[in-house]
């Protein structure tokens, strides 16, 4: 399944995507800066609020900033790779999906390699910047183990967000506004999940935990910072099974889509 041809395909596609991006380099710079500005802008609200109120339960400005930053990095990574899934509805309705499916290569891989939103590097930049800023106040020591834990954290979040992208794509198969549902989960809700979940009422907490959104960044970040119990280590590996599960559902829905016809 993963043979030389596939690897060469990935490399060539990637080179092509870079080429395309270079054709519109000035546009890229502008959008990159706009992305940085926009997300730093969102951060200012958090900053002002935390500066005024000092703590949300037992989290301070730096805790909240850290969770926000981790989310930015993960989101940036996921969007870099899986951006085309945001437009899955177009693929379905324009018939491009058919063409991709009668090729001897994984549909999933083909869709990924069709586009790469390099401007998401802006998100990663913002996230990294903020992590650096809170390192001292949070007394994070970047030892080898810590770095490994951090990588795990990021990978976990990215997989979770990737899974949400796939949920949006799967819904697109059945005409529902997959895009907007995904936006809801990714943009709106995550903004509130940078605070401890106890900040909200019981029933909201239940929703957040059961929908697994809590485990995207919030809980795993707590584990990293050591502000939660030690048995939370398992929360950082939930990302992979979640992603694989959604991937399976996406595949299954595609099969039934082709089986039933359009």
């Amino acid at each position, binding site marked *: 399944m993963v043979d030389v041809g596939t690897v060469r395909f990935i490399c060539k596609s990637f080179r092509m995507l870079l080429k395309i991006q270079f054709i519109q380099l000035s546009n890229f710079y502008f959008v990159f800066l706009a*992305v940085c500005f*926009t997300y730093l802008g969102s951060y200012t609200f958090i900053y*002002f609020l935390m500066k005024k109120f000092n703590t949300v339960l037992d989290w301070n400005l730096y805790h909240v900033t850290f969770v926000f930053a981790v989310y930015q990095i993960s989101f940036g990574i996921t969007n870099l790779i899986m951006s085309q899934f945001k437009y899955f509805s177009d693929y379905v309705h324009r018939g491009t999906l058919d063409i991709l499916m009668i090729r001897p290569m994984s549909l999933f891989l083909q869709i990924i390699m069709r586009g790469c939103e390099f401007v998401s590097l802006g998100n990663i930049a913002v996230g990294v910047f903020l992590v650096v800023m809170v390192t001292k106040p949070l007394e994070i020591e970047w030892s080898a183990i810590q770095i490994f834990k951090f990588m795990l954290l990021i990978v976990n979040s990215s997989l979770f967000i990737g899974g949400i992208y796939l949920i949006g794509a799967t819904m697109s198969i059945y005409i529902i506004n997959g895009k907007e549902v995904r936006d809801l989960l990714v943009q709106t809700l995550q903004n*509130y999940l940078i605070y401890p979940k106890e900040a*909200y009422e019981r029933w*909201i907490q239940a929703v957040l935990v059961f929908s697994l959104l809590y485990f995207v960044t919030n809980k795993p970040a707590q584990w990293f910072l050591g502000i939660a119990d030690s048995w939370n280590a398992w929360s950082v590996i939930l990302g992979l099974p979640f992603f694989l599960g959604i991937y399976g559902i996406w595949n299954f829905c595609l099969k039934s889509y082709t089986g039933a016809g359009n």
Partner: protein
Amino acid sequence: MIRISLLSHLALRSSYYLGLFRECLFLLLSIQLFRTLYSGTGTVLSATLTETVTYIIISKFAQFFNMSTMGRIQSRIISGEIATDLLRPVEYDFFMLVQEFGAWIQRILSITFPIVLLSLLFVRFYPPSSISYGLCFVLSLLLSFLIMFFANYCVSLAAFWIPYLWSLNSVSTTLFIILSGAMIPLWFYPDGIRNVLEWLPFSFAVYMPINIYLGRIAMAELPILFLKQAVWILILWLISRFIWSKATKKIIVNGG
């Protein structure tokens, strides 16, 4: 083909409900967050919890971002069709204004009112401080609309020189939201920054009208504030005229 248009119909409907749901969720979570924030702090703040909650809810009336007419203007600039609109500039302004006003009223009716009514059932927040304050609030809101319209207008006209629409719009919208107090009340901003912002037109778009609603401003001061709003409208309108004239020259020189 038919299937696609049927789908888009359904999509619009569900889009609306989804949007409504999203707004409710946003409100719900914000209010709960603020409750937690307030309960945790010992310091005295410049506004009470209920005032803050009221602010968040009422600010939904003052959502002047993502104006659809701006998008249309910009695409006409990019395609060059704007040249025909230059023939009647003042009427064009007015035409766009009326359209955008209609869109705003529609937004209020279809989204803001349902949400506010829903909030009445579940959340405790203040009605207007008094009838007269309420009326002044409405007046102020109308002036705010004009301010933000011309501000957005100036930005969209910048498309003549900055064809990077997404970047332009994203940055300006973010800036406007931060400077106007549309997300969180300006009283949470550091004092120094707030003082500066009170000199800019944007705080007059959201922060000021809601302060009127809450009765945090003395009646006597209101006329001056209205005047300030009017002055800003004038200034922004003049700026937009200025940009238009520059743009016209550019088009004539370049041939469209």
